[in-house]
Each structure stands twice: as structure tokens, then as C-alpha cells.
């Protein structure tokens, strides 16, 4: 292995952060309509797009490496594993990195169509956001996960109010305050877990949580619940999902499309912590989240799709569909078997791409409808009815899960995985019902906007989206079609990824080294170095 290959796992974090720093040094175009800054904006676009393209190649390489089954652990500063910061790239992480790049590239391309000039330092903040996302996906340490959450959140606060306006500041303030409260809960959960296990390394936690017994196990379970609240908030799990539609609908289209992956960070964390650490082999704390997670996930899907039916604007409709899709993925997570997880992974990749594409499409359509904009009322016809109509149909069919699009394949895998589960009836009826209602919601929106047009109203001055804007949207939706074409290899990959997630020993060996599982140390540390581990209490 060459030196460069050895550094691969850290590059998805370093690349965006280095680009962001370069972009900050390059300077800004000077705010609204400053002509002299235009050359700077052009260079910022080239640098930013080039970096994201490089990131895409990098993550594709990591996926290819991970597909072989090897778990790559990278010890930052070469500190030994449970004590230093470990970055881990397994199949799941690599897939999430690739998904982030796949969403980021078209979204950034779309943003260079004009949105990036509506505020300052868009590209630098965008890169910091990618750094936080990639970091959260590669880190193998719970506290480090908190740090990367904060990096991606503080970038998202700025992106959220990008373009400004009263509504964005109002909703943005709610978003920031809610996230800060969630961060406080995250810290409480993490430190409680540290107090009882003496480690925050995910691989080490998976080995130590099963050993915690008695009253201490209750405290560990309490921290698991706290973490579920935090991750559920990020993922928009049912009682905590009401902030999402307002926030995403207020953000500008490229930002909302990028945020489609932010909910998946929460899902990813639930998967890693509640699926694996508190999974089947966690002793007294095994399956701690299960009794609540499945009903809540089913409820999230239902509430999401009902919200979509009630939405009055296209952007809110798409935002509610984000909630519904997260619910479906979490249903797959809470099935707790390899085939369910595989279905969840497949569906998550597809739904993220579709939702991101829908956010961009919503703005394209709204721009061509004159004063009605994105409100779901009859208005003048759009300038490009055929093109936008076909894109809408494609996205709707994929979101609702009609064959032969990947939404259908993902849902079929999910239904198969849930047979013989005690909740089979609930899962089947919810997943199928939600698909049907999604179709109704999108069909209603589509027929109002494309068929129920009023010729008596003045047409929009907009002659049609520029090739760049349409191209970026098309790219995202084409990616979902590609998922259908290459369904077999992707499915093999997700199945392998799900099996790899269940294999806690292999993960521990890769991260903690060959001595890994057998290592005995005096943790949690109680002050007496010579005391036997776990037995001593202060």
C-alpha cells in the first residue's frame, strides 16, 4: 500500500476543508451585484466544482476499495485506537460518502446558475458543510461525531439563511435554537455513556456496552434514549419532525436539496449507535430502542405523507415527502435483520437523490409560473411544460415507488424483509399506503401546475430554465434511473454492507488492532490503577 493509499480515509474530510480555506483566501465577490467581484466568483465556482468532482472520484475509489470487504481504519496522529481519534471506512461509510458527493455535485452546479451570487461566501460555506458531512460519515468515535455534527450544523445555519429575507431569518432562528438544544442533549448522552463504559470509540463501545450490568445498564440505556432523541431530531423522527418542513421550504432550492442528505446523517447515526452498539449482542441493553423505533418510524412515514397531501406549496410538499422517506428508511432500520438493512440502504440512496431532485425541480417550475410561484393554485402555463412535466412524472413515480424505478425496488426489498416479522401487517400497509398517498399528492400538484392552467392570466416573463439549471436537475433524476439499471450490483453491495454492519468483531479487529477484543484496561477509570476493571467503584 502506497503512502497516498494509506491516507485515503482522511482525504474526504481534508479535501473540502482545504478547498474552503482556499476559497476564503480567494475572497468574496463583494455581495449583491458587485460587478468588479465577478471574476472572483467565477474562480470560486471553478475551484468549488473541481473540488466536489475530485471528492466524487475519491469517494468512488473508496467504495471500490470497501466493496472488497476490508474495513479501513485510520488513526489520526497514530494514537492507539480507543484513545485517539479513529476514522473508519467500511462499506456503509463509503456508500454514504459517495451519496454525499452524488448529491453535492449537481446541487453545486445548480447553485452556480445564480444562487451562489445572492449572498457572500456561499462556496466556502458549502465546502465546510461537505467537510462536516463527510467527517460524520467516516468518524469511528462518538465524541468526534458530535464535533462533525457541529461543523455541519454551523455551516448549515449559514446556508439556511443564504439569500436572506425575513422568513429565512425567522425560521433560521428556530432551526439554530432547536439544534443547539439537541447538541446539549447529545453531550449529556455521550458523557453519560463515557462515565459507564470509559470509552467513546464505536468499536470499543460495541464490546463494552454488553459488559455493563445492573443499575449501570439502566444509565447506559438512558444515554441510548437521549442519543435517540438527538439523532431522531436530526433525522426528523415523528414527534421531532415538525421543524423540518418549515425550515426546508424556507431555504433556497440548492440548499434545501443539499439538506436532503442532512436528515440521513441522523439516520446514519441511529444505525451505527442503536443498530450496532445497542443491537443484538448488547447484553442487557440489547435492542433498547426497538419497542419505540418501529412504531415511530411508521408514524413518521404516515405524518409525512399526510403533510404532503395538505401542503399548499410545492416546496412544502417536497419537504414533507423528505419526512415520509426518512420514516420508510427508519422502518427498515428497526427491522434489525440484514435484509431489512440492505433494503434501507438501497431505499435511502434513492430517496435522497429523488428528494434533492424534487427540491430543484420545484424551484424550476415555480420560476415559470409568474406570481403564483410555488403555490398550488391554477396559474399561467409554464414555459417548458413537456420537459418539466416529464421530470415531475419521473420523480413522482420514483418517490411513490412505481416499477421499474428504484423506489419500487427499494420498497419491494423492504416488504420482503419484513415478512415473518411480528409487525408485518403494519409495515406492509404503511409502506404501500404511503406510496399510494405520495402518488396522489404529487399527481395533485402536477395536474394543478401542468394541466389546470389559466390562459387568462399573464404569462411569466421567464422563457424557461437555463440549460445549467435543467441539466443539474436532470442529473439527479438520471442518477435514480441509473440506480434502477444497475440495481443488481448495488443490491449486492448493500447486502454486503448490511452483513458487515452486523459483524461487530470484524469491525473491532479493524479498529482496535489484532489484540482488539481481548484488551483489558482499567476502564471506566475510577482512580485506582491497580484495581480490577469494572469491579471497582469510587
Amino acid at each position, binding site marked *: 500500500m502506497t503512502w497516498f493509499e494509506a491516507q485515503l480515509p482522511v482525504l474526504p474530510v481534508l479535501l473540502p476543508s482545504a478547498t474552503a480555506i482556499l476559497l476564503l483566501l480567494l475572497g468574496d465577490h463583494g455581495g449583491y451585484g458587485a460587478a468588479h467581484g465577478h471574476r472572483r466568483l467565477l474562480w470560486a465556482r471553478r475551484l468549488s466544482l473541481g473540488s466536489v468532482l475530485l471528492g466524487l472520484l475519491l469517494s468512488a475509489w473508496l467504495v471500490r476499495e470497501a466493496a472488497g470487504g476490508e474495513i479501513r481504519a485510520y488513526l489520526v496522529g497514530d494514537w492507539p485506537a480507543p484513545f485517539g481519534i479513529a476514522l473508519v471506512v467500511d462499506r456503509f461509510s463509503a456508500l454514504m460518502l459517495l451519496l454525499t458527493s452524488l448529491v453535492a455535485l449537481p446541487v453545486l452546479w445548480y447553485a452556480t446558475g445564480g444562487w451562489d451570487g445572492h449572498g457572500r461566501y456561499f462556496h466556502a460555506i458549502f465546502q465546510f458543510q461537505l467537510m462536516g458531512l463527510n467527517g460524520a460519515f467516516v468518524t469511528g468515535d462518538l*465524541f468526534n461525531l458530535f*464535533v462533525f455534527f*457541529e461543523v455541519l450544523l*454551523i455551516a448549515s*445555519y449559514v446556508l439556511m*439563511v443564504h439569500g*436572506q*429575507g*425575513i422568513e429565512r*431569518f*425567522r425560521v*433560521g*432562528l*428556530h432551526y*439554530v*435554537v432547536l439544534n*443547539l*438544544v439537541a*447538541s*446539549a442533549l447529545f*453531550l*449529556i448522552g*455521550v*458523557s*453519560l455513556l*463515557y*462515565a459507564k463504559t470509559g470509552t467513546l470509540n464505536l468499536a470499543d463501545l460495541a464490546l463494552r456496552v454488553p459488559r455493563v450490568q445492573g443499575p449501570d445498564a439502566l444509565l447506559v440505556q438512558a444515554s441510548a434514549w437521549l442519543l435517540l432523541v438527538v439523532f431522531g431530531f436530526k433525522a426528523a423522527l415523528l414527534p421531532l419532525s415538525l421543524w423540518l418542513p418549515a425550515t426546508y421550504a424556507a431555504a433556497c432550492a440548492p440548499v434545501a436539496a443539499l439538506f436532503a442528505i442532512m436528515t440521513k446523517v441522523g439516520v446514519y447515526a441511529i444505525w451505527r449507535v442503536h443498530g450496532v452498539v445497542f443491537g443484538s449482542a448488547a447484553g442487557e441493553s440489547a435492542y433498547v430502542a426497538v419497542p419505540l423505533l418501529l412504531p415511530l418510524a411508521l408514524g413518521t412515514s404516515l405524518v409525512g405523507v399526510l403533510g404532503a397531501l395538505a401542503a399548499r406549496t410545492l416546496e412544502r410538499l417536497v419537504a414533507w415527502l423528505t419526512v415520509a422517506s426518512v420514516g420508510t428508511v427508519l422502518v427498515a432500520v428497526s427491522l434489525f435483520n440484514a435484509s431489512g438493512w440492505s433494503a434501507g440502504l438501497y431505499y435511502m440512496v434513492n430517496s435522497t437523490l429523488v428528494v434533492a431532485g424534487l427540491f430543484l425541480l420545484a424551484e424550476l417550475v415555480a420560476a415559470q409560473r409568474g406570481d403564483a410561484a410555488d403555490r398550488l393554485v391554477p396559474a399561467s402555463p409554464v414555459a417548458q411544460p413537456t420537459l418539466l412535466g416529464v421530470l415531475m412524472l419521473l420523480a413522482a413515480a420514483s418517490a411513490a415507488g412505481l416499477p421499474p424505478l428504484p423506489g419500487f425496488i427499494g420498497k419491494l426489498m423492504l416488504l420482503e424483509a419484513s415478512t415473518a416479522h411480528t409487525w408485518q401487517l403494519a409495515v406492509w400497509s404503511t409502506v404501500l399506503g404511503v406510496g399510494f398517498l405520495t402518488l396522489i399528492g404529487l399527481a395533485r400538484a402536477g395536474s394543478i401546475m401542468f394541466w389546470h392552467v389559466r390562459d387568462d392570466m399573464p404569462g411569466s416573463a421567464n422563457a424557461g430554465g437555463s440549460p445549467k439549471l435543467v441539466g443539474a436537475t436532470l442529473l439527479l433524476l438520471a442518477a435514480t434511473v441509473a440506480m434502477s439499471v444497475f440495481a443488481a450490483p448495488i443490491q449486492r453491495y448493500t447486502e454486503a454492507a448490511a452483513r458487515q454492519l452486523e459483524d461487530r468483531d470484524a469491525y473491532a479487529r479493524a479498529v482496535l488492532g489484532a489484540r482488539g477484543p481481548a484488551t483489558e484496561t482499567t476502564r471506566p*477509570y*475510577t*482512580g485506582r490503577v491497580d484495581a480490577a476493571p469494572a469491579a471497582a467503584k*469510587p
Partner: protein
Amino acid sequence: MSMEFLFATGIGWIVAVGIYLLLRGRSFPVVLGLSLIGYAVNVFIFGMGRLWSASPPILGTQPVLADPLPQALVLTAIVIGFATTGFVIELALRSRHDGGSDHVDGQPDAPGKDGEGPR
């Protein structure tokens, strides 16, 4: 015993005050509430390394060492909390400036009817 009791009730009291402030309708008390909760959480992390007296977290001659890791974690949490508080203050000010009201829901100020005490 008394140190643990004081420590636990102190954290609980600060969090209670923080939650009360967080539920107020104006952005300024909300920011104060967030800061208080942040302090309480920082002290909580510190306490999760167990409470020690006269035992520095540095290798030396003394027989008992405090756990240095929560102290390192709390430093990170303090820095992040400081930065985010700065940001939320700036955002609240901007929201107040653009919206003409520091109500968290952007409701316009109605003199004497907002029920938020004298302003």
C-alpha cells in the same frame, strides 16, 4: 456526599432555569437559556469523569490522578458552545433588525399586549 449533592442539584437548578428561559417568547431570554444549559452540560461532562479532590489530571508523584479525558472533552464543548452562542446572538440581532421585532415567531410588537413584562 455533600459535594456530590451540591454538584447534582446545582446542575439541575441551572438546567431548570435554562429551560424556563428557553421557553420565553423573546430571543434574548432564549439565548440566555441556551447559554445556561450549555454551562450546565459542560459541568455535567466534567462530573462524568467522577469528582476528585486534590488530584490533578497530570502524571506526577501524587498517588491519585483525575481522569483527564472528560476535561479534554469539556474544552472542545466549551469552544463549540462559545462559537454557536456568538452565532445565535448575531442571528437574533439580524432577525430583530429585519423583522422589526425580537419575538421568536416574528410577531410584531403590540404595546402592552405581549405579556412579556415591561419593555
